[in-house]
């Protein structure tokens, strides 16, 4: 559907304009210390863009109405946003990014810089590494599409059945164990495209790997369960979070004509495993959305405004674009992520400054605010003019300076003297560097870190002085006392300007959204960015602001990002009641699940299990009288937590009350996601 960058005339013209920004964005990203996958850029038109977005950034997916739905939504949204699709890049090596033909050059540049940072995140975040070190995603998804299309066109298989089966499986697409690497359930799935011999080696690798898995899968316990249903074995021994995997192993289909469970058809097993694999492939993206989008927005901004990647005339458009992206209502992962990254950068840099200052004779954490002249500090940490405005100081730069890229400096100097000879023509010859356009080229990552030092930016002035007493005390407690400075000047001369960025790179390697929020959301951050929590209150019948305390904000955010923001449901027993029934259990964390939806899910799980399915959960109930009383007193009623067994036997859904001891093990006792102030409670 889309064509490579050089394919069409319009596209070619755009491509020619963008070739330099593409190359230079990649160069700049690497100078900043990023290590992105190579990115292939494609130019697509508006419709193609919407198609790509609907398909999750890929050109081919298996046939399914849900892509149609996403396309439809995307188009409607496009009408609202004036037809602007911003960026789409997929996690692959090389990554593929798509540029919309009709966007302005400044939009394209923004997309390109943004994409380079995503490609860095894909390549370096460990959670992405869990699926595969270098995913061959486009090819994998295309193989999946081929396989499913083949089932659909197979005259032996009813196409409608395939579609329904896909629907059933997708219902559980988030019910995988996303914290462990993907392992195929068995090796029987043959997805190798006969004409695609290049993939065979990789496929064989997969087979090898899977042989080991086979051993794990066909455990004695499992064989027991298979061999003999009457012996009453409950399995799995430990609750299984990978519900899809469990169903792939032990599930059956329900044969309506025979009114009994029967073994899944081969195509059913294949479809299940294909979708499970895709769920594992996409899981890291869902788990790192805040971080990843924030990371991309951060570096995009550093390149576009920090290094004036946007030309003067483009800058206004770019600012407008950023305002649109960041200004959309509701909790916006771009904005939250960007703000946290900026906070990490600032607070790490501040820590560096504070540590230096605390080593100055006479400065302690107790007298810090009284003895330190913050105006002076602010002046002293100002980046060296040599790196701040490279063009004006080209002659002063020292090739031996670790902040300077010696080769590039030489090239830049040659270019400048050449252009002086040629009476002011800009340098453009091969290998020469135009320092006016690309001043960053003559600097190293260290030099750029100083050039972009966050604490001296206008919006961050005062950040150092706002350091809290508590933080000062903590910092000083972990400091080794050996080196002392005589003066503030000496201390600050030693500042490591690169500390913020290097900390950020570490974080982007090992964190996911949950750990990211857990670690970096502080009261200072919550106050500065005005976050608050809200709850539904029974007394007013609407949502009310409940807290601006960071621990509360964190709790609520964690709830939204832990386990894809979904309740955790595990397989507790595959031989429930000793009747081969499936028992799922909702691990209740204080927030109940949507019971109505859960019933619909169970109906679909039944199709994948073939026999009755059950779900244990805990619900909150309000006594009507209590609610009335509470309202009159303007208080919140206390709900009662009750155990429930939701069951679907293929015919009807029933809900029955369970004694507390049957669900007690599911109730979390130490987590409380409720942020209502105590004094509201009745």
């Amino acid at each position: 559907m889309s064509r490579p960058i050089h394919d069409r005339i319009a596209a070619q013209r755009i491509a020619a304009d963008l070739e330099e920004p593409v190359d230079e964005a990649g160069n700049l990203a690497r100078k900043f210390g990023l290590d992105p996958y190579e990115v292939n850029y494609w130019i697509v038109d508006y419709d193609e863009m919407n198609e790509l977005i609907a398909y999750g950034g890929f050109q081919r997916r298996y046939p399914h109405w849900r892509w149609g739905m996403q396309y439809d939504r995307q188009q409607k949204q496009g009408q609202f946003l004036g037809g602007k699709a911003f960026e789409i890049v997929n996690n692959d090596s090389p990554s593929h990014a798509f540029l919309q033909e009709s966007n302005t050059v400044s939009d394209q540049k923004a997309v390109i810089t943004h994409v380079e940072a995503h490609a860095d995140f894909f390549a370096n975040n460990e959670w992405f590494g869990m699926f595969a070190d270098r995913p061959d995603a486009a090819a994998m998804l295309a193989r999946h599409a081929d396989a499913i299309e083949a089932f659909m066109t197979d005259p032996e298989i009813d196409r409608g059945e395939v579609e329904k089966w896909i629907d059933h499986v997708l219902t559980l697409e988030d019910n995988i164990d996303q914290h462990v690497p993907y392992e195929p359930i068995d090796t029987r799935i043959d997805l190798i495209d006969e004409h695609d011999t290049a993939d065979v080696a990789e496929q064989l690798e997969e087979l090898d790997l899977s042989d080991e898995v086979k051993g794990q899968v066909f455990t004695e316990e499992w064989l027991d369960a298979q061999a003999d249903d009457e012996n009453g074995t409950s399995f799995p021994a430990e609750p299984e979070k990978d519900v899809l995997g469990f169903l792939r192993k032990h599930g059956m289909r329900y044969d309506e004509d025979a009114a009994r469970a029967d073994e899944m058809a081969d195509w059913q097993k294949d479809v299940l495993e294909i979708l499970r694999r895709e769920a594992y492939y996409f899981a890291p993206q869902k788990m790192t959305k805040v971080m990843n989008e924030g990371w991309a927005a951060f570096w995009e901004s550093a390149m576009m405004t920090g290094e004036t990647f946007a030309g003067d005339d483009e800058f206004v458009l770019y600012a407008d674009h950023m305002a649109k992206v960041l200004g959309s209502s509701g909790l916006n992962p771009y904005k939250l992520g960007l703000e946290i990254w900026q906070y990490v950068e600032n607070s790490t840099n501040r820590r560096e400054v504070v540590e230096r200052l605390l080593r100055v004779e006479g400065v302690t954490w107790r007298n810090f605010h009284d003895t330190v002249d913050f105006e002076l500090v602010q002046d002293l940490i100002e980046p060296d003019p040599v790196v701040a405005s490279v063009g004006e100081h080209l002659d002063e730069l020292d090739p031996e300076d670790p902040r300077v890229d010696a080769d590039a400096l030489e090239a830049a100097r040659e270019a400048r003297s050449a252009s002086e000879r040629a009476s002011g023509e800009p340098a453009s010859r091969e290998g020469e560097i135009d320092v006016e356009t690309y001043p960053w080229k003559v600097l190293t990552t260290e030099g750029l870190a100083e050039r972009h030092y966050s604490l001296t930016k206008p919006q961050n002035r005062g950040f150092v002085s706002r350091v809290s007493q508590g933080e000062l005390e903590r910092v000083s407690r972990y400091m080794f006392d050996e080196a002392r400075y005589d003066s503030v000047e000496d201390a600050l001369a030693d500042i490591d300007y690169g500390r913020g960025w290097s900390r950020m790179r570490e974080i982007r390697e090992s964190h996911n959204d949950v750990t990211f929020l857990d670690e970096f959301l502080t009261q200072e951050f919550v106050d500065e960015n005005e976050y608050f929590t809200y709850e539904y209150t029974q007394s007013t019948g609407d949502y009310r602001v409940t807290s601006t305390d960071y621990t509360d904000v964190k709790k609520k955010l964690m709830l939204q990002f832990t386990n894809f923001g979904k309740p955790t449901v595990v397989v507790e027993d595959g031989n429930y009641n000793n009747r081969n029934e499936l028992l799922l259990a909702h691990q209740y964390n204080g927030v109940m699940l949507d019971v109505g939806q859960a019933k619909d899910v169970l109906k679909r799980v039944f199709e994948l299990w073939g026999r009755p399915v059950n779900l244990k959960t805990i619900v909150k109930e309000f006594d009507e009288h209590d609610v009335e009383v509470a309202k009159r007193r303007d208080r919140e009623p206390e709900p009662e937590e009750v155990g429930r067994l939701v069951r679907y036997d293929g015919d009807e859904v029933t809900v029955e009350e369970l004694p507390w001891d049957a669900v007690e093990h599911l109730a979390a006792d130490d987590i409380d996601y409720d942020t209502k102030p105590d004094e509201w409670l009745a």
Partner: protein
Amino acid sequence: MGLREDLERYREVGEERRQDLAEFIQYGDLGQSRPDSVRVPIKIVDLPEFAYDQRDQGGVGQGDAEEGDPVDAQPQPGDDDGEDGDPGEEGGEHEYYEMDPEEFAQELDERLGLDLEPKGKKVIEETEGDFTDITRSGPTSTLDFERLFKQGLKRKLAMDFDRDYVREALKIDGWGPATVFEWARGENMPVSRAWIDEAYDELPEDEKTAWESFEEMDANTERVDTAQRIRREGIDEVPFRREDERYRYPEIVEEREKNVVVVNIRDVSGSMRQKKRELVERTFTPLDWYLQGKYDNAEFVYIAHDADAWAVERDEFFGIRSGGGTRISSAYELAAELLEEYPWSEWNRYVFAAGDSENSSNDTEEHVIPLMEQIPANLHAYVETQPSGNAINATHAEEVERSFRDAGDVAVAYVSSPDDVVDAIYEILSTEEES
């Protein structure tokens, strides 16, 4: 296969996705709608999943906020399943099928098998129709010049004849003016004797015998009929006559507008707890939409009452709660007063009241029923909302029902849970239809 096909499949899957109207009325979120646009949630086609109860989940917002401030329920991120960074996708906002009240009424008719035909009542002031009527006098600007010209032309044509031909006839040897006049009249030429005499006198003597006979003259002279002559020579003048003048004036059309005034009465006394209030809202709101959709012009009057009655705005109507006792007749007294603005001869009227059937003793019998009889309306209805079955003293509905058992314009409906709402609406609307 490809995205086109995915889209088609989606449309097929989603075809029936609009929430069933009855289900929407009974359990749906009515609050998303505005008076001029009914928003029926589209059943989310998307697949179900294990998800948190949205109310119980709460959330995080951004902005300057104080504890206790109300928050617009914000869409939760993560509702969408965009797998890649697709901006603007945040928040799985609900989708709505928007219909105007007309469509709502039509759909409800279909759904419930109703067919209420509203009556046109009020004569809207004489609208001026086309300028099709005519009169003999009037302002110059309305003069029908076309007609005047046509009449003049007709007149001209009627008076016209082939003068040259008649002159030639006078040249026939032996024909004198008398013969020619006789001949011309026989030929239906509108020629006068005076003209012939004059023409004869003007002929030179030698020409008076130019033709041997009529046949010779006719063979040598071309007779030109009027149309040809006008075409050849044009018309010098068209004789306009005052008697041909006509002035146009507009036709007066008496249009009857299908208009309706709906009086919604609600008991807001202490016994009307939240559940009862919600049931009233669920019953009244669709009725309002329905009537608004059925009539060209709908006006609404909202009356709240406990022991006294007062008129309120729609926004407050369903939320008000007061203490105090209940005297339903107070509301009917006010209704009668307010309805004076909407004379029965010109307005369709609906008077809907709702409450839990509690009333002060004898009020129903002695005041309410007589008032209901006195207030002419297409339909009176009482909706009893009593979630927990009947209370002992709550007999208003029954009394009304008993008194008006045979009347075709009074409906009583009982609503004890949302399940009953649609039946109640049917009961009310079908009562009028039968009458």
